[in-house]
């Protein structure tokens, strides 16, 4: 089975999910609408033997003002990865359906993506921060993220030396 065969099956089965092939080099991927990702992944797992989820992650496309969630379901039977991308508007708390019910691996991977990009995975059983402290502000892997100078009154050391005065930026020069 190849990516094109999977594409043909998905397009005939889910015409409303907007499955399109994008020829990125060297790995091509399929783009899917956010509302269709759940049924597409369920179909891949149940009927095309994509038994596991090899990866799930986020990408921030600052220039296009979009956020992307990338899924890499993998089939041990066909030895094939089908990269799927869901593109949504670039805003904090944007909704993407959670795929935890299909692959349990998605549970922590979605928490990580939420932690870093602020994407709200709808239907996730336990959407909390995972790598950062619970009271951290902001989503660090957004490309316009600015590291705060203080966390709970503690200066965040970005360089070696004395901590900056309160109110003065510790890095970058301009406030």
């Amino acid at each position, binding site marked *: 089975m190849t990516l094109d065969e999977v594409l043909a099956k998905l397009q005939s089965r889910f015409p409303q999910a907007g499955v399109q092939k994008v020829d990125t*080099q060297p790995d091509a991927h399929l783009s899917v609408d956010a509302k269709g990702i759940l049924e597409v992944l369920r179909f891949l797992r149940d009927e095309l033997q994509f038994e596991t989820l*090899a*990866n799930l992650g986020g990408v921030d496309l600052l220039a296009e003002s979009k956020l992307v969630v990338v899924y*890499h379901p993998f089939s041990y039977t066909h030895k094939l990865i089908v990269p799927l991308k869901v593109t949504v508007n670039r805003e904090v708390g944007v909704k993407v359906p959670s795929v935890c019910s299909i692959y349990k691996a998605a*549970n922590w991977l979605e928490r990580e993506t939420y932690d870093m990009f602020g994407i709200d995975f709808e239907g996730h059983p336990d959407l909390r921060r995972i790598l950062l402290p619970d009271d951290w502000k902001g989503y660090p892997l957004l490309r316009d993220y600015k590291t705060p100078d203080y966390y709970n009154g503690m200066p965040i050391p970005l360089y070696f030396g004395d901590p900056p005065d309160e109110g003065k930026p510790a890095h970058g020069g301009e406030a």
Partner: protein
Amino acid sequence: MSETLLHKDQNTENLRTDELLINMGPQHPSTHGVLRIVIVTDGEIVKSVRPDIGYLHRCKEKHSENVDWMAVAPFVDRMDYLASMNNAMGYAIAVEKLLNVEVPPRAEYIRVITSELQRIASHLMAFGTYGLDMGAFTPFMHAFRDREKILDIFEAMSGARLLYNYMWIGGTMRDLTPEIITAIKNFIKYFKPMMSEYDNLVSYNKIFIERTKDVGVMDKAFCYTYGLTGPMLRGAGVSWDLRKDMPYSIYDKVQFDVPVGKGEMGTLGDCWDRYIVRMREMAESCKIIEQLIDNIPAGPHRARVAKKLRVPKGEVFSRTECPRGELGFYIISDGSEIPYRVKVKSPCFLNVSTLDDVSRGLMVADLVATVGSLDIVLGEVDR
């Protein structure tokens, strides 16, 4: 004490047990790093478990977006600090796919030899610390004695003992000298009989078997849905190894077997099965090194790669078989001198995520056995 002497209130029917919240870690010898586990116990039984990670989060993915392509490699070394060579090889292979660079054969040989040596070193660490978890201190000393010899070889190769920065994009940092090749040969000659010593000491030890068999069972379906790979998956009886089934580098030229768990001591996919898969993999790594070490082709040890790399626009998801499972790199390049996005899919991250599911109903001591059998490195979990 006869029943008549018991006070009415001491009757066990009236005794009530409460759920108790226990913190294990973050500084705890059996959590293999800084992992905090909040355990809800009912007496000695684990009711639920909440792993709390992030103590070793060093923003590697964010850093990678701010430095050039070559400068990411040392970060990758520091993720899984017990298997730096394997990690860096995974990153190098991913970037080479983007660059479409062919690595010289000599470099491929050196890479595979070093990463198999690193696999032995990493599994030795897993073996030693697992012994510690089970209350046996001696295996730890044996494992460290032998791991030290591998670190000496790596020190001669790269100048560092733990974080090597040896696998560069396009090849390796330095060439192998004849002295190092002799040292590797001597090590393999020394190490092969040692493995039966480990087996006598730990693997078939009655106490060890009783502690690990039928504990923390993960079957095939469980591994699939949690995305578990490497020794976890093979411990569940699935014969899957990227080196064998989707070979990269020169793994298609070498003969080796893929050890799988068979439920020899108890249930298929228990802690003992995962443990024995690692032990048997060390023997397979020796086999691979023996096949390659005498036939290293002459030639350059690095492809001609520009000092300041410009990687063509594109994206790649590449996986390699690391000692702890399949390490994936999802890399996007926008055609500039620094990566646009480097997403690391760490195998241990998913291993830890299974803890709640697998440990419900276990005894607390068996939870320690289960955590040990995951062979986690928190540096890689948190990145």
